[in-house]
């Protein structure tokens, strides 16, 4: 049975500029223990969607079922009890700035009237888990963004939640810190089997840790499915757009090659002005009847002349590798052999 079920959820907001339909008849099922991504451009309604899961926003229409029970049927007190089992982290961390790291993590436990000593013990264990035990007496203002998010994660875990909601949790962080936070979330998912719902506008986040993804646009779900499938066969325009943006940023981060291609030799080739007119790569493949992988292609300006720059990968057990290199050189193409995968 799905742990979280959204049934035909709609939500409208009245703003100064008129009525905004944040969610239009959205249905979604999230399974126990999976990491589910909800991605969309800003204003697509994804933040509203995640707030419906713990009823921070009450949908105008439709049902939210957690473990088969509708949140609507709960009394105010029962709803508060239910929320204790649904942790949440935010883009701007939302820590108590006037309290120490330890007291922040204790906070949800104090709400549940857990005795102080017991709460502190638990909080210290969680800080150990997120690697910040030595900062327990620091105040949030003394921490970096990544550290603040780790504290927020420890706080969200304090009440042993079954579900963890992440609202743009890595959007305020740099790429390295983002990766480390995502690893931590993955660890938590593995270790405790917590269902994680990740709201983001970054496809890279979805690609790195999500099992399934829902793509949102204008308050509706454009596409849902396994991350691999959506990536390889995006059906909708918005999905294609998000994936393309992701690939663009990834190329800058130089990680693409390591993930998509298996281990052949990588070379960098540079076209001169003359050779750019001829379909060299196509002819190369036709001549040797052996595929090469184009990992990246771009033009660069060398001394005022536009030059084509391409990263190729040969098949792992290429029979014609050396002959192919020779062929390229004969066509006035410069080759840099054995390019390190990390520096592409």
């Amino acid at each position: 049975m799905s742990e979280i079920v959204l049934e035909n959820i709609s939500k409208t907001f009245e703003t100064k500029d008129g009525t905004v339909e944040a969610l239009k008849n959205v249905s979604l099922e999230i399974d126990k223990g999976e990491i589910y991504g909800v991605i969309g451009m800003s204003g697509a309604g994804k933040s509203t969607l995640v707030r419906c899961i713990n009823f921070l926003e009450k949908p105008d229409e439709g049902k939210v079922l957690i473990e088969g029970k509708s949140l609507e049927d709960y009394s105010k007190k029962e709803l508060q009890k239910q929320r204790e089992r649904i942790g949440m982290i935010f883009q701007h961390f939302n820590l108590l700035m006037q309290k120490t790291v330890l007291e922040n993590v204790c906070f949800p436990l104090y709400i549940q009237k857990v005795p102080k000593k017991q709460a502190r013990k638990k909080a210290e264990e969680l800080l150990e888990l997120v690697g910040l035990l030595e900062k327990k007496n620091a105040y949030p203002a003394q921490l970096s963004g990544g550290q603040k998010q780790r504290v927020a994660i420890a706080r969200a875990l304090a009440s042993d939640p079954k579900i963890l909601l992440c609202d743009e949790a890595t959007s305020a962080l740099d790429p390295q810190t983002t990766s480390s936070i995502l690893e931590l979330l993955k660890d938590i998912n593995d270790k405790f089997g917590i269902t994680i719902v990740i709201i983001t506008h970054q496809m890279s986040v979805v690609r790195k840790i999500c099992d399934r993804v829902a793509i949102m646009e204008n308050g509706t779900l454009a596409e849902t499915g396994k991350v691999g499938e959506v990536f390889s066969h995006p059906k909708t325009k918005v999905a294609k757009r998000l994936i393309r943006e992701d690939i663009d940023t990834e190329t800058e981060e130089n990680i693409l090659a390591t993930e998509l291609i298996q281990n052949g030799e990588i070379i960098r080739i540079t076209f001169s002005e003359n050779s750019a007119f001829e379909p060299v790569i196509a002819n190369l493949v036709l001549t040797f009847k052996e595929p090469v992988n184009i990992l990246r292609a771009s033009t660069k300006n060398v001394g005022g002349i536009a030059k084509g720059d391409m990263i190729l990968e040969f098949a792992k057990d290429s029979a014609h590798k050396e002959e192919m290199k020779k062929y390229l050189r004969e066509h006035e193409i410069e080759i840099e052999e054995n390019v390190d995968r990390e520096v592409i």
Partner: protein
Amino acid sequence: MWTPEITSMIVKGIGETLYMTLFSTALGYLFGLPMGVLLAVSDKDGIAPNAVLYKILDVIANIVRSIPFLILLILIIPLTRLLVGKSTGSTATVVPLVVAAVPFIARMVESSLKEVDYGVIEAARAMGAGNLRIIIKVMLVEARTSLITGVTIAIGTILGYSAMAGTVGGGGLGDIAIRYGYYRYQSDIMIATVVLLVLLVQLFQTVGMFFASRLDKRK
């Protein structure tokens, strides 16, 4: 002309001023703090919007704050008599001081609480906190620095009001300044009391700011 009697009178005046100011501030917060919390909470962007309650408190606060203190002092003499039994002296002055201070304090509390980052409140709500806990454990804690600054401002203002009460026999340093300085043309005594009033305000301001910044953990 500077006799021991005058010295002891001034010392007594300082005592009365402190008594009126601090007692009125304390009583002012006793009523003003809850009123300010209700204003912040019931506002349309608050955690429990209630247009009717907000409007009632809003109107009360505005009416009282728009009456000049001297007028208020005279206006509520019947109430003062009812509560204290007389209308002159330091204790009697506390009544109008509190009446004037409550809406003023409520407004400052309201604005302090509204500064609290909504995200933190939302986080607490997501953790299962009810409104009362959010007010006590989140809003009042996060607004601590601003609230203490507010107390400092309240003390300074109430001290000024208490001096004004001197004109109608309220006691304290203001009373002395009016009686000696204004009616008897003894400006040296008036200057002395004014200097003392300035020093008192400075003292409260310095102490208040010290605690406000000492207890601020945001930097």
